[in-house]
């Protein structure tokens, strides 16, 4: 059974300018021990999909569809019921470690409260577990860090604390929302290798939300590319990189510097802007930016279809040959 199974999820936000549809009916499931990379630009709905799962949508947000966590429908649960799961069997790491920790509480307090809340541990037992977990995420002098405040730690250190916090209850599912975006490149590499180790050791299902294909290449087994609240392509990580089938995926890859092709080709940007979610173009949402678009793309939204075992795409073009 999948750890998390999302079916026909739609997420919308009521704004003074009208309803904004952030997620337009996506399906995805993640198995135990699997790492899935969710890739897309800002506003593609990749974060909001999992905010909905965590019950963390903004006040004006509503979600429809099904989110099954270990078989149990959790979408629409109240915070009391969700609190059995959040931070316990399902936990999340956020993008900005500089602001994600409570500034006036010691690191130790913020870690141990997870264990006292979910596992009913006493203060001392919880503190011992927290120190052990800080050691696992390779924080030097963990006992001293426990007594420190967040502002006394560097960004990379704080993100490790966040990771430790998320792993304290040995979750079935770990959602990492841009876990390395706010970090220095050298620190990014350390955090990524740490996450790879932990995933292998704990056999946790990992959802990696990012706009950085490099991060995905290093960590994910499977990739889902999202655009304008829809999945446009999905497949095993190797094939997505070597043989992208959707023009948007191809555009993302071409805009990324690659060390194995240094000097061979120029980086190209995807023309245009991400679409306004309140006025999506007719047919395929990517059409206005797509070099391969033809009449059918304007009339009909492409469905996500199987193209090979484990591979799906939502595009009317059979092959991506250059059009003159």
């Amino acid at each position: 059974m999948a750890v998390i199974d999302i079916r026909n999820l739609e997420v919308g936000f009521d704004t003074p300018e009208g309803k904004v549809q952030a997620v337009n009916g996506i399906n995805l499931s993640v198995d135990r021990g699997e790492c899935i990379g969710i890739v897309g630009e800002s506003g593609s709905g990749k974060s909001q999909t999992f905010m909905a799962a965590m019950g963390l949508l903004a006040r004006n947000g509503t979600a429809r569809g099904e989110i099954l966590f270990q078989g149990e429908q959790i979408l629409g649960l109240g915070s009391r019921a969700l609190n059995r799961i959040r931070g316990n069997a399902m936990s999340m790491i956020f993008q900005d470690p500089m602001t994600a920790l409570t500034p006036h509480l010691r690191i130790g307090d913020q870690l141990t409260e997870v264990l006292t809340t979910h596992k009913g541990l006493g203060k001392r037992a919880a503190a011992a577990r927290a120190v052990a977990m800080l050691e696992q995420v390779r924080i030097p002098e963990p006992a001293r860090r426990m007594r420190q405040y967040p502002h006394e730690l560097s960004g990379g250190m704080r993100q490790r604390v966040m990771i430790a916090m998320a792993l304290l209850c040995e979750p079935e599912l770990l959602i990492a929302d841009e876990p390395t975006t706010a970090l220095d490149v050298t620190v990014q590499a350390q955090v990524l290798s740490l996450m790879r180790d932990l995933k292998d050791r704990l056999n946790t299902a990992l959802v990696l939300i990012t706009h950085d294909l490099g991060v995905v290449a290093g960590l994910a087994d499977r990739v889902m590319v999202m655009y304008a609240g829809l999945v446009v392509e999905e497949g095993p990580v190797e094939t997505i990189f070597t043989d992208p089938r959707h023009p948007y995926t191809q555009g993302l890859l071409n805009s990324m510097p690659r060390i194995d092709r240094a000097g061979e080709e120029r980086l190209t940007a995807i023309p245009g802007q991400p679409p306004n979610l309140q006025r999506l173009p007719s047919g395929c949402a990517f059409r206005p930016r797509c070099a391969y678009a033809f009449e059918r793309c304007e009339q009909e939204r492409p469905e996500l279809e199987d193209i090979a075992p484990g591979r799906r795409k939502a595009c009317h073009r059979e092959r991506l040959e250059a059009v003159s």
Partner: protein
Amino acid sequence: MGSYALRRLIGVVPTLLVIITVAFFMIRVAPGGPFDIERTLPPEIEANIKAAYDLDKPLVVQYIKYLGGVLTGDFGPSYKYKDFTVAELIGAGFPVSLKLGASAMLIALVLGVTLGTVAALRQNSALDYAVMTVAMTGIALPNFVIAPLLALVFGIYLSLLPVAGWSDGGMADMVLPVTAMALPYIAYIARLTRGSMIEVLRSNFIRTARAKGLPEHRVVTKHALRAALLPVVSFLGPATAGIITGSVVIEQIFQVPGIGRYFVQGALNRDYTLVMGVVIFYATLIMVLNLVVDLLYAVLDPRVRYK
């Protein structure tokens, strides 16, 4: 932090000197004197009395003599309440004023923070609008309007509480003056708390706390409240000053024998030493309480360090 507090305390001295000087000469500008009464005294007797209190000497000489007295802790005798020194009068009035002011402050804090938090948690609900409307009214009405209204309604129309007076300083005597003093501050603090609480509840660390699966009351009290209280703590400095100066009016209206009333009486009677004594006392109190507030800030926010 200890050396910071010490330096701030030493800084009080020059400020006080300026306050004493300005106040000393300002009261003397007011026409009349402490011994002007309707039936004028024979000139010889008046001259005698003035000589006894050094009032016949040049103003500068009086000022220097007064300063010398203050330095040794002697605030002089009261001109009007004969047989009492100023220190004795302040000593008698302060416990009463403290009881009123501290109660008002405590109630304002507890109610203000609670109402503000509840309003923030139910943002844009009927409850939120109700709290904010009442708060707006509380801020708009000055306490010299609220006080007589309270006395009229609860003292006269409903006859529930004494209109004024301080027979034994019991609960019944305290309710109206404390309410009149606290109401505007409940309103201010509720508005401040609501605003900062709404902002804090949107912050990333609250999202983290919720993602951790903590019960909502823990998220609010442990993670949000302390951060949301920072602006309230900054407001406590001016608020204490406001409560102290407000007590002058309130004590007069409700005939409460605190320092505030001595201050008003002293000013009306040209009781120079009494007025000066109260001014020095108030000024010191406000400055020390402001220091306490600044130190409290560092306790709430570990990122603040005073050196």
